[in-house]
């Protein structure tokens, strides 16, 4: 655990020390995560909390995918290409500590960003805070972790590091559409089987858990979403265990 935290601290130090990265990620995340729900909330005369919540969760899915999946894929593949991963391994760190530390760092960023976006919406719209805030927080952390793990897989399967960010774009679109980020009208246009498929993504589970957290209710109804996240996490872990590369392809 000491090693994981040391790598996470290193990742955090590099990220927060890079003004352009912080500015880019934070500005993009806040604009995307809070901007559209704010506009929708301001334009609705009926003060429809359900619509604003739907937009909030949809855009949160998009932000989490960008911050967790894309950023993990880009960070790891860049460090692999720069032979920094090899250097970290030469230091005696275990492989799982290096990857785990990177994930902890990314999940921390994603969680902080989600918190900022959510607080902005609670402050400037009529969206109330969740009835079960701990469940909401746990949901964000868990989904960010699974999405970051998927980012590790992207860093493995994308052969060229410069293609990592573009390669995640279809995944970002899928998670956003599936989570309702383009609004109920677009979601309503999707064929049933597409909606069903998109609900299988981790962000589909996030929406279900987060809705319960906002509205309250029986936790026993969360079996499906929790199983969904568990399956994605296991698939990611197996892929990373079997396929992760420390050296660049030559």
């Amino acid at each position, binding site marked *: 655990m000491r090693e994981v935290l040391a790598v996470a601290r290193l990742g955090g130090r590099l990220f927060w*020390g890079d003004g352009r990265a912080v500015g880019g990620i934070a500005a993009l995340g806040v604009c995307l995560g809070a901007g559209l729900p704010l506009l929708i909330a301001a334009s609705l005369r009926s003060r429809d909390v359900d619509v604003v919540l739907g937009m909030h969760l949809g855009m949160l899915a998009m932000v989490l995918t960008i911050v967790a999946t894309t950023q993990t894929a880009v960070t790891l593949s860049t460090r692999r290409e720069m032979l920094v991963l090899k250097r970290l391994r030469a230091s005696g760190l275990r492989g799982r500590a290096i990857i785990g530390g990177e994930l902890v760092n990314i999940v921390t960023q994603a969680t902080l960003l989600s918190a900022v976006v959510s607080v902005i919406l609670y402050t400037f719209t009529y969206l109330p805070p969740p009835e079960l805030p701990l469940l909401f927080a746990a949901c964000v952390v868990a989904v960010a972790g699974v999405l970051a793990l998927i980012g590790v897989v992207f860093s493995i399967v994308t052969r060229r590091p410069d293609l990592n960010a573009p390669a995640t774009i279809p995944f970002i679109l899928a998670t956003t559409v599936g989570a309702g980020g383009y609004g109920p009208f677009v979601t309503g246009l999707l064929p049933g089987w597409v909606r069903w498929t998109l609900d299988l993504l981790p962000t589909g589970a996030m929406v279900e858990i987060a809705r319960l957290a906002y509205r309250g209710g029986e936790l026993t109804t969360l079996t499906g979403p929790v199983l969904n996240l568990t399956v994605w996490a296991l698939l990611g872990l197996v892929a990373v265990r079997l396929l992760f590369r420390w050296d660049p392809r030559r």
Partner: protein
Amino acid sequence: MAAIQVNHLSKSYGGFQAVNDISFEVEAGTVFALLGRNGAGKTTTMELLTGFQKPDAGSVRVLGLDPFKDRSRVRGNVGIMVQEAGFFPDLTAGQTVGIWRDFTPAARPASEALELAGLTAKAKTKVRQLSGGEKRRLDLALALLGEPDVLFLDEPTTGMDPEARRNIWKVVRDLAAGGTTVLLTTHYLEEAQQLATNLAIMDRGEIVLGGDMAETLAARVGQVSFELPSVSHAGELPLPATVRGRLAVVKAADPDLAAQTLLGWASERGLRLRGLEVRTASLEDLFLELARNDEMSQTNAPARSDHGTRSDRPARSGGAGA
């Protein structure tokens, strides 16, 4: 006691045999040089010894442990200066060492590691602004952080100026004197000759020569060269010589004795041996000789025949020669 034991180690990539059935041992507290031309298999051997790669066949023991299977236990006692590895370019040298201390149990102070590597003055310089040689020194500082029992140095002084190189040599000598086992690869034969007590020369994945450095060189001939006096011819010389133009070259196991004999001969005749040069055998001579032999064997026999020491004669450091 052997700190590093390599037995019949092999590694191939696809159809390319990078390391082919090599064996050697490195005694604790000695410096062992692994030499060879580009592509000889040195770096692959280093990667197998440090647990970055899994051998196809054979075994490696570092401090009695398998560096691949027991990687975390081995790495705790080992410092590795890899030939190719990156840094975080926006961190300073001091920050890099400071961060690496978090990863290293019982690490020495960052200032001490920087001083050992001769980087104290560059502690506040960003890595991206360091020269190639300074980056190698930073690499050394990281490798030395954990006060390792075994130090692997892959091309440690590449890109360094002569003064920095000599400073690093001193650090390596001091470490070995303090009981650290050092295995280094280098292209600088002078470096190997200065530092190592034992060596193995690799070619195409095999060890073609190995053993105690002094014994290996002692077994090679030195040479005395001079300008043949105009009144003499080669047949008159007291020792067999080859003459190219007016330059006479006498090969001898003891070049000092040969020089004395030649000077005595010249003195008796009232002659001067202009341009007299006495050279003991150097690692460079040996290396070039092996390369020439290899080229000749390739020319003579497409299916290369073995020559010199092969893996059935393990190189061994710390006393016992090959």
